[in-house]
């Protein structure tokens, strides 16, 4: 009853990562076609997605602290952790 369904979880995680990468891709195309060079466009795209994930993580943390049946602290910190690679990519590229 209390076991985590790791297989379904991994699948959902993969879908989320692909969705975020696709969002970065769309933003890169938008910034690039708006006239930015490629590297700043990638940096901006990754930065926007990373910032959005970090904000989502903070929101989820507030939600979990308020007492949610569904959203846990792990979910919130997971979202924040997922923002890190995008933010790093935004700084490094």
């Amino acid at each position, binding site marked *: 009853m*209390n*076991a*985590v*369904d790791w297989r*379904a979880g991994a699948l*959902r*995680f993969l879908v*989320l990562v692909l969705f975020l990468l696709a969002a970065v891709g769309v933003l890169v195309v938008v910034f690039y076609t708006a006239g930015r060079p490629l590297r700043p466009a990638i940096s901006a795209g990754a930065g926007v997605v990373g910032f959005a994930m970090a904000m989502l993580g903070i929101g989820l943390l507030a939600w979990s602290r308020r007492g949610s049946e*569904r959203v846990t602290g792990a979910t919130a910190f997971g979202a924040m952790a997922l923002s890190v690679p995008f933010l790093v990519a935004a700084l490094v590229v």
Partner: protein
Amino acid sequence: MSEPILTATGLTIGFPVKRGIIFQREVARVQAVDGVDLTLHQGETLAIVGESGCGKTTLARGLVRLRDIDAGSITFMGEDITRQRGRPLSDFRRQVTMIFQDPIASLDPRMRIGQSMQEPLDIHSIGMPAERKRKVQEAMERVGLNPEHYNRFPHEFSGGQRQRIGIARAIILEPRVIVCDEPVSALDVSVQAQIVNLLEDLQRDLGLSYIVIAHDLDVVRRLADRVQVMYLGRVVEQGEGEQVYNHPRHPYSKALLSARPIADPKLARSRERIVLQGDVPSPIKPPSGCRFHPRCPVAQASCSAHDPRLEVAADGHGWACAYPLAP
């Protein structure tokens, strides 16, 4: 009594309570329906009554296989349909249809009602297109709607007319059983009477069997041959309508009946009223022993330890109570 047309044995339906979004974990289970037995005979009306949240609608949806069943079995005309998929399930759904509680929500606002009613015929590939339209118009006429309104949208009808559309849609496949999930609770009293009369007429003319889910006990008394009373996912009393209404043996049935409004103020003042204390316990963690004992006016110490099973007497009257009321 004729052969049973629909039988459910030990039907159990639950909903998982999950934590987490990506890596989800089931932390509890809401046992909405817990080991319900039910038998419906040809041409009979079986009513299922109980307060909000007792699992009536989940049971109804489980019976037409709109919800997955955790345990137990459903037999329709001798055939086990509990785990069937594909064609056999489609054939079953042609024979057992449903009338939904909310006539507004059960109709697509963007579809003309003719299209809505024709959809079951399209799904089951019944007749040619022109024949389907004729069938729809016949069904409309049968439920007291003007067939010329075939091309109207749901918002152009009153609440009662919309429920008639729902009934027409349920009978268009010529089913054997209709599960009516609170068919009149969203309607005003005068329209309720019209719909109840319509359901009775259709049963007489088409030989239908009904399972009526309701919390309006007067509607149930009028329609039902047999009644099952549910509390917290379980059947606590069952029997012929008159047995349950006139001689309730389970304290919950008695309390439910005593809460029924009576039009005559003198009569209302003179009758014994049982007001239950507290709220319905959580179905996630039901009370130990008898599920009704924390609210029961006649509970004894042993009720918290002993879980009474539904014992059915030879006359069909059954109750799940260790200290039943005198008849």
